């Protein structure tokens, strides 16, 4: 068996690690956020920051079991059906490549109404305003959120074997 340390991010070294340890890494995590250009730009960036920090911390906790995908992004002004369709194509591809569990993590409230249109688990969290916080406060908060996710992930892993 291959002994590895480190990370499971979307970079060549980690993907190689993943390929060598495929039988253990059965979970794909896909951050989802929209991009708006114009008035909501700042809010859009804040959401992206939150999701990025959260998922990278999550990846630290679960390095050996999940692969963190690059985020699925789309323009806020795009039609829902189109975005949903795109995500379904991602899902189809990821399922075909032997991932047993898929988690989507997003702060976009719209996704809650489409929870049932994807097979993976869609996790919605409120975006927290990180801007005003010090680094240690940020970490503490992200950490507590990740602890919640930890419970959810463990549950799902138990459920689906």
């Amino acid at each position, binding site marked *: *068996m291959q*002994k*590895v*340390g*480190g*990370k*499971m991010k979307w970079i060549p070294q980690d993907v190689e690690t993943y390929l060598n*340890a495929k039988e*253990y*890494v059965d979970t794909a995590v896909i951050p989802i956020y929209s991009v708006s250009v114009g008035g909501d730009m700042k809010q859009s960036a804040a959401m992206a920051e939150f999701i990025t920090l959260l998922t990278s911390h999550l990846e*630290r*906790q*679960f*390095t*050996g*079991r999940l692969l963190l995908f690059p985020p699925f992004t789309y323009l806020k002004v795009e039609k829902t059906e189109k975005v949903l369709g795109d995500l379904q194509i991602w899902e189809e591809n990821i399922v075909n490549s032997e991932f047993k569990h898929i988690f989507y993590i997003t702060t976009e409230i719209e996704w809650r109404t489409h929870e049932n249109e994807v097979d993976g688990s869609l996790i919605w969290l409120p975006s927290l305003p990180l801007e005003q916080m010090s*680094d240690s406060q940020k*970490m503490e908060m992200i950490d507590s959120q990740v602890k919640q996710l*930890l419970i959810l*992930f*463990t549950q799902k892993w138990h459920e689906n074997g």
Partner: protein
Amino acid sequence: MSKERVSRRQFLSYTLTGVGGFMAAGMLMPMVRFAVDPVLKAEAGGDFIATKQKVSELTAEPVRVDFTFKQKDAWYESEVTNTAWVYRDDKTDKIVALSPVCKHLGCTVNWNTDKEHPNQFFCPCHYGRYTKDGTNVKGTPPLAPLDEYPFKEKDGYLYLGKAKPRKGA
């Protein structure tokens, strides 16, 4: 008027000098890097990093200690936070600082979170377990004990170095 032609002898000697130069550079470069390396490393790794943990407050119950340092990733400098599980050993009165990185595939292990096996380090990813001293429990996925941090005490605070692997059980 035609330019002076390069003779066969001249051509060969130019080429050989050129190739020889490359070969010498190829040999010297790693040597120079090897000599300079420690200088470059000292900055990146640092020796011991301060934590907010007071040594006097450590008990037999492992606590999570976070510490932050700067790391350079290509041109992007970022703050990296590492974690250690630290406790004071009852019997020897020594401090033990363990790395939380599971030796199986690198998840983060937690203390005492598996109800069926209390007082052990537990990895939620593939149910790896370690006893309190960091020794991997046989029959669970990890094949080596948790890495250990060298530590120092300075002004009452705990300083941690770079985690080192230990011999397997």
